[in-house]
């Protein structure tokens, strides 16, 4: 049996043991997301526009992460709308920055890996770098949006008459509570992957100036910074969407 298959079975087993039906659904959502990612790459290789592919499949993946296995519609719908809005705002930021930084494709450090491959494949790698940035931040956006939205839904249930201004303050407060740990998820998630790269840089004694301008490192750091920025933006955005929803539903009942 292949190791990936065996690890999947172990994960499925513990997920079902701990989470029951929800656990099984979470497992399903993980593989569906992987399927979307792979599909995105295949579509780009078939010459579909990388940015359109990332945007459409990105929204689908946000839906998969947020809706699969969760029941509370107030929480999930708010989180989804907010996440999509953040994604769109982020795209406005990602497009110029990726053009400006020109960290697309590969750097000198990748030369070994590229041996024997044709690099002139007719795909715009700047657009691919934009797609990569969009896709790698999705998880962080969805997770933060869910956390804020769940916190606010609970608050609304406990205090149905809460004023919108108080709700906004509460949302920012929840954001302050989660930001530290969310940053750590991202920091470690990325830096685990940097381990080999940093040992390489240290081994070959790169100077600070070389590191700051290094294409491979900058490409990675840009992903980290986009993720951090997306999480920060998610906090007020989710709170805002929740406030608007509350105002609208109150108008209807009034």
């Amino acid at each position: 049996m292949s190791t990936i298959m065996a690890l999947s079975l172990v994960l499925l087993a513990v997920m079902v043991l701990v989470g029951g039906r929800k656990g099984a659904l979470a497992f399903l959502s993980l593989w569906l997301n992987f399927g979307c990612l792979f599909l995105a790459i295949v579509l780009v290789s078939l010459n579909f526009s990388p940015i359109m592919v990332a945007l459409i499949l990105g929204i689908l993946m946000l839906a998969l992460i947020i809706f699969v296995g969760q029941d509370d519609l107030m929480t999930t719908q708010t989180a989804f709308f907010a996440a999509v809005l953040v994604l769109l705002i982020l795209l406005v930021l990602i497009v110029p920055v990726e053009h400006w930084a020109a960290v697309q494709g590969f750097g000198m450090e990748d030369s070994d890996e590229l041996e024997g491959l044709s690099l002139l494949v007719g795909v715009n790698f700047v657009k691919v770098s934009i797609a990569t940035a969009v896709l790698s931040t999705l998880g962080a956006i969805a997770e933060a949006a869910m956390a804020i939205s769940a916190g606010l839904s609970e608050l609304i249930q406990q205090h149905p008459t809460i004023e919108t201004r108080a709700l906004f303050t509460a949302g920012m407060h929840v954001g302050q509570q989660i930001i530290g740990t969310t940053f750590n998820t991202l920091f470690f998630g990325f830096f685990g992957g940097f381990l080999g790269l940093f040992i390489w840089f240290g081994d070959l004694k790169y100077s600070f100036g070389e590191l700051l301008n290094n294409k491979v490192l900058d490409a990675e750091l840009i992903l980290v910074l986009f993720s951090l920025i997306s999480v920060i933006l998610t906090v007020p955005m989710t709170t805002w969407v929740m406030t608007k929803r509350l105002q609208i539903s109150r108008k209807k009942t009034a």
Partner: protein
Amino acid sequence: MGKLKRWWPLLLILVGGLLVLGTRYAAPLYRQSIMQVTASRVTEATKTSDEFKNSDKQYTQYLTGRLLNGQRRGHTVHVKNTYSASGAMDEKYSVGEQVFISHTSKNILIKGLKRDTVMLALLWLAVVLLVVMLHRAGLMALLSVALNLVIFFLAIEIDLARRSDGFLWLFGGLALIFAALTLWLILGPTKQMLITFAATVTGTALSIGLSALVLALTHHNGIYYETMAYVTQVAPQPLFLAATLLGSLGAVMDESTDIVATLFELRDDKPTISALELFQAGRQVGTAIMGPLINVLLLIFIAETMPIALLLLKNGNSWGYTFSMTMSLGMAQSLISGIGIVLAIPVVSFLASRLLVTKAGVSK
């Protein structure tokens, strides 16, 4: 004091902005030669096509630039640059950009774009947003990331000095220090922190142990360690395990912190709550957040492989081969992290429920 509090975000924006602008004039600080492009002329365009029927275009660009540092500062130089429309490993330079160059006896070669301005600008944007929107909590998050970075670099220095002897022990120890420091910064020296720390360590250790067992039992079948990028002196296999350990650590801490915080709140709301009820509540909270958390890591680990996977597909490789060569490691990493994230739920719920409630009643 009150005045200072209101003004310091503005001060931060101003100082940061000046720093970003300053990088445009920072060339004298660099030892490598830097030129600013003053004129560009694209002369040749050739259509190319490879054996896989990919068509592309290659251009030759003649650049004129002004040297910004070194003995010949202010002199004008001419450089030739070739780039492709796809730009996988090359790029077009435009007027106003600053680029690193290297002189040989007669030739001048372009080494790459100077990226310090854009990097600092993005960092500045992140810091400003963080501090303006989330105030003190944002600063603390920043502080914890900065401290962890310093420790991370120290560990790498130690590893290089020891020529990677005892690599896994070093980075296992590092993970312990990371967890303790980060949780202490977020929660302070409290009982809550101790429980979260114990759960994080136990959950991560269980998942790494279990996964190492699975890897051994399946003889690492389908895991292509040789595809790991940037491997120098460390054997790929320990490097993979250490990277996975660190990668999952943050997510496990994130989740454990959430669960413990909720259980403390529940206990305070309802002091007579039983240990079993607390355990069930912990499981419920954990189940709701484990899915999104695992997806965060999956997307970080797999999205990055997009350029290389694309290149392999475009070079006529099959889906299966492309997966094995570019994503098998990231997928294994995601699954192992997932196991850790799930196992931490019962561990943290059990620990919290036992330590918060005693048989005689509520503990203090």
